Structure formats: C-alpha cells, structure tokens
C-alpha cells in the first residue's frame, strides 16, 4: 500500500495508522477501554444519573396525566454503555480517510489519532451513552426537556439535538458536558471534558434500529463508492428499503400521536 493510497478497509486503516503514525492499535485499545470504564463508573455514581433514575417515575406520571398514556417503554431501568473500541476506530477511519476531502493531508482540525487521547476523546461524543425508549413521538421532546431541566438545576452544561437523517434515522441526542478524571497512559490521572450521550427515541424507531443495526455498522465502514444511481431512485437497493422504512415509521408515529390527541379531545 503506497504512502498516499487511501485505506480501503478497516484492516488497511490499522496498517496505515501503524506505518504513518506509528500507532499500535492493540495498545491504544487497552488504554481506551481503561479510560472508558472510568468515565462510565464516574457518571454512574454521579448525582445527575442517580437523580435521573429517581425522577423517571415522576416524569412518567406527569406525561400520563397530560396524555393518558405511559411515557416509557419497559424496562425503564437504563444502563450505561461504553462505545466499543472498534466503533471508535471506524469513526476515526471515516473522519481521517473516507470523508477527508484533504487527503492525503490531514482533515480540517487535524488527524484524529488514538495515541493522543487528550485531543481525541473530547471529539467523540458518545464514549459513554445510554438510550431511553418512549412509547409515543411527543414523549421524545417531553423527556428531553425534563433531562435538560434536571441538568440546569444541577448546573451541568447540556446540548440537545433532534436528529433527522436522510437515511431515516430519527432520535433526540442529549449531551451532558462535564469533567472526568481519567488515568493517563503512563501514571497518575488527568481531567478531561467529555460529553455523555443520552439518546431518546421511540419504540418503532428502536425496533427498526435493532433490525438494521448490523446494516448501519457495515455501511459506516464502507468506502464511499461512486454510484450510478442515488439510493432514492434505486428501489432495488437495501438502502432504499431500510431508509424509507425509517421515514415511514416516523410519519406513522406522528399520525398515531395526532389520533391519540384527537381522541382525548373528544373524550374517548
């Protein structure tokens, strides 16, 4: 593989990291997992997470009073997840190579390299994340606003994004921004500022997400290929089916809430 050839696969990318940047992927994986675990532990024991778990029943009760229906899909107890190292590597592969318009030069903002965690980890939004699944579409905004309120009460910086992708992915992403003390590679610790991601999505979107998870993962690893047709016109492609299914479900969920509210208006 030449020095300026763009890696075509994840395996080529790992070799590129080793050859060009002298990065041992195994070594950086071990360190990442150690850091990610500490972040998860700290967030799990944080006042915000504990408070959130205590408040969920109240949020559910308030939503039920307003709509007549429960807010959350069971189980309501949620876990925190660590982003697998492989996913992280794929993300850097996309930014450094696949989507890098400056190739073979660094992308805007510089290379994102596993051996520079101080610069790298804060750019990854979801090293630690969790997911709440609500029954109805309006529950997404309701819950997000409650989570933001709770963050504000505790003076934690938070950002919300209502994500609607061309590929039919719909969810709210809430980011809590705070400091974490993580082990340095050699010894002692350092303080870094990171975002913890809380996703809120609907039951139907979650069903489709689980069904298509493997498809999305493999898509993220692919080289961007020249296509003879845009997927929106390629009705035989997997993308056409998967992506429009996501859009259709989102539309259906909107209609369900609409019907539900009309029923309530007429006292049904």
């Amino acid at each position, binding site marked *: 593989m030449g020095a300026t050839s763009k890696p075509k696969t994840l395996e080529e990318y790992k070799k590129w990291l080793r050859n060009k940047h002298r990065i041992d992927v195994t*070594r950086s994986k*071990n360190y990442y997992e150690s850091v990610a675990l500490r972040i998860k532990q700290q967030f799990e024991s944080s006042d915000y997470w504990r408070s959130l778990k205590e408040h969920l029943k109240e949020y559910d009760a308030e939503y039920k009073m307003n709509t007549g229906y429960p807010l959350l899909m069971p189980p309501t107890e949620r876990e925190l997840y660590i982003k697998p190292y492989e996913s992280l590597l794929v993300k850097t592969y996309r930014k450094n190579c696949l989507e890098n318009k400056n190739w073979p030069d660094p992308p805007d903002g510089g290379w994102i390299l596993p051996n520079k965690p101080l610069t790298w980890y804060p750019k990854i939004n979801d090293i630690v994340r969790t997911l709440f699944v609500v029954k109805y579409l309006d529950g997404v905004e309701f819950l997000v606003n409650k989570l933001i309120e709770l963050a504000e009460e505790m003076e934690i910086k938070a950002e919300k994004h209502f994500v609607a992708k061309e590929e039919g992915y719909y969810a709210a992403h809430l980011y809590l921004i705070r400091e974490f003390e993580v082990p340095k590679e*050699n010894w*002692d610790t350092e303080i870094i500022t990171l975002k913890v991601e809380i996703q809120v999505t609907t039951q139907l979107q979650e069903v489709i997400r689980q069904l298509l998870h493997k498809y999305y993962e493999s898509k993220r690893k692919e080289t961007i290929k020249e296509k003879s047709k845009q997927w929106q016109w390629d009705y035989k492609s997997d993308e056409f089916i998967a992506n429009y299914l996501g859009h259709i479900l989102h539309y259906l969920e909107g209609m369900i809430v609409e019907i539900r509210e009309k029923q309530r208006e007429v006292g049904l």
Partner: protein
Amino acid sequence: MKLKKEFMEYLADIGISQEIYIKRIEEIYEFYTNTCPEDIEEIFVTDYFTKDGTREYESLWFFSKSYAMEAKNFLTIDEDDFDLAPIRNRVMYWEVKKKNYDFKEANDNSRLHVYFSLVGEISGELKASSKNCDYLRDIFLKFIKTNVVKEKP
C-alpha cells in the same frame, strides 16, 4: 482458592486488604491455576493515584516461568476479560518510563511504566505507583528482561 502467603503480603503492601477484593483475586487466581500449564510464581496489580490521593487498581497479573496472565479491570463486575500469553524467549521489545525512581528503592512519588511486545503482535503494559514500583521492577527483571528474544549466532 487461597492465595500464597507472599501474594497476600504483597497485596497488603499495596493497600489491598478488603475482603471483597481478596475474594475476587482468589477467584481469578483459581481460574488461572486451572488454566495455566505451569505453577504461578508471581502476582502483580497495576495501580495509579487519582488527584485526591485515592489508589485505583486496574489489571491483575500473574506470571509463571513461561506465561504472563492478565485479568483486565479485574475489580469491575460487568465482565471478565482474562488472557494468557507465552513469554519465554518471546519478548521482542520493551520500554520503561519512570519518574522519581532510581530503580533501587521507591518512594511515595515514584512512578514506573513498563510496556513490552511479544512475538505474534501481543503486548502488555504494567504501571506502578509508590512502593509498587519496586515490585514492578522485580517483575520486569525476572520475566521481561530475561525473556528477550535471543538472536541466533
């Protein structure tokens, strides 16, 4: 499975005496006793200090004459992540980084980090703080330095 007396003394020396931690270490020791083809000779726990002086423990290592064993993040209860690698005459590269440590006698501010890679693209990292540096030094001299691949004449 009960730990050897010298293992218990080591653990006490690096601040591990809580029953729940000892029990966990004993479980892992039993696992490796049953899976390693040789007698386990040494134990080592990687550690570091947080800014408020709390000592955190990461990986639990065992060493036999020919094998190195690592239980990563051994005090978490989420999952077990155990591995074993042959090390006899297989160390291709080692790297030592140290601070406030003369490789003779550690003090509270001593820090030591050892990285090594083996034939077959396997590597390991061990870190130590304070008195634990002396133990890591011994592990390094006994199992890493002596197992560097010998060049054929």
